[in-house]
């Protein structure tokens, strides 16, 4: 005697069985028992106890939330900084005319900063798993960069008495921190093999 296959039984459960299977299961006690067993297995699966994470992952998620919030603030800061830098360029050109070295250093630091920003975009993928320590280090670096961006924006304000050497120093500090940030991100990217 031909019995229902597992496909037939699952189709019966889903209400999609063939006419033959529907008729057969009415007459065949063995297949009815098999169908009951399927229902019971599924009920038992649903009743399995919930498994709980052995470790609390919230601190890592929270650190990522804070990093993202800092980054959003910094992004806004970068936009204002870009506007401020453009203004500073206008204000400082005459003075830099007398000081070619400082001008060259300032340009170099700005170029390096822009290059590092681009590199950072390659590694800066939201959702990548960071350890709590790495996320905290990234947050700290981003905070320090945000402070420097704030200083640069103030230096570039129309009434500020910006010292050329001070601007160069701030930009160079920014480049140094950006470099550290890129190193953290690229190391992490290599570590996870992405």
């Amino acid at each position, binding site marked *: 005697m031909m019995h*229902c296959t*597992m496909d037939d039984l699952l189709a019966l459960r889903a209400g999609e069985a063939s006419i033959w299977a529907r008729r057969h299961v009415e007459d065949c006690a063995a297949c009815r028992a098999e169908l009951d067993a399927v229902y019971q297995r599924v009920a038992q699966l*649903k009743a*399995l106890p919930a498994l709980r994470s052995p470790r609390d*992952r919230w601190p890592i998620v929270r650190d990522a939330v804070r990093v993202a919030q800092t980054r959003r603030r910094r992004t806004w800061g970068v936009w204002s900084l870009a506007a401020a830098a453009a203004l500073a360029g206008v204000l400082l050109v005459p003075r830099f005319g007398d000081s070619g070295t400082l001008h060259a250093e300032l340009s170099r630091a700005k170029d390096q900063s822009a290059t590092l920003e681009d590199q950072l975009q390659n590694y800066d993928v939201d959702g990548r798993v960071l350890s709590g320590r790495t996320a905290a280090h990234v947050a700290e670096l981003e905070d320090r960069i945000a402070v420097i961006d704030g200083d640069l924006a103030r230096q570039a304000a129309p009434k500020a008495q910006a010292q050329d050497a001070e601007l160069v120093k701030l930009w160079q500090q920014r480049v140094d921190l950006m470099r550290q940030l890129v190193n953290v991100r690229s190391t992490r990217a290599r570590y996870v093999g992405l």
Partner: protein
Amino acid sequence: MTVALAVPDVLVARAQAGDEAALEALYRAFETPVYNLARRMLRNAEDAEDVLQETFLEVVKSIRDYRGEGYLWGWIRRIVATKALMRIRRDQLRATEPLGEEHGKPGMHVGANLDLERAFEHLTDTSRAVVWLHDVEGYTHEEIGELMGKSVSFSKSQLARAHARLRGLLGEGEGAQA
């Protein structure tokens, strides 16, 4: 495990505004169902923990895009399932194991009389994922096929093979289905 978790709209709105306390409340509310789903789909507990973390990083990043269509658990659950399936695919690629290839743990044989939880652990990664998504979470074969990048019939055949294997591992039925 059935999740019938209602989350107040105001909590979702606060989370969408980036309120850290609200985001933590969401994490606490869904931590266990997210981990449980990931752990049932994945063989490795650490992988399930990573999926828990990745899921909430995604939730934090994308919660602004949640428009309230359907219930929040449905939205989060899809993120969990997608991330868990990505891990299964990645592991299968690394092991050069074709998706859905049937195998059991070494030494495991039909009629081993395991309890259901242990028998379930002995299914292949793909079969386990299909069984859990379909039979427990209530996904349709169409939805599972879409999530896995496979056909509806693939999902159906995986489910049938998984049930046949469970039946064997549980030592059930000696008459029909032989």
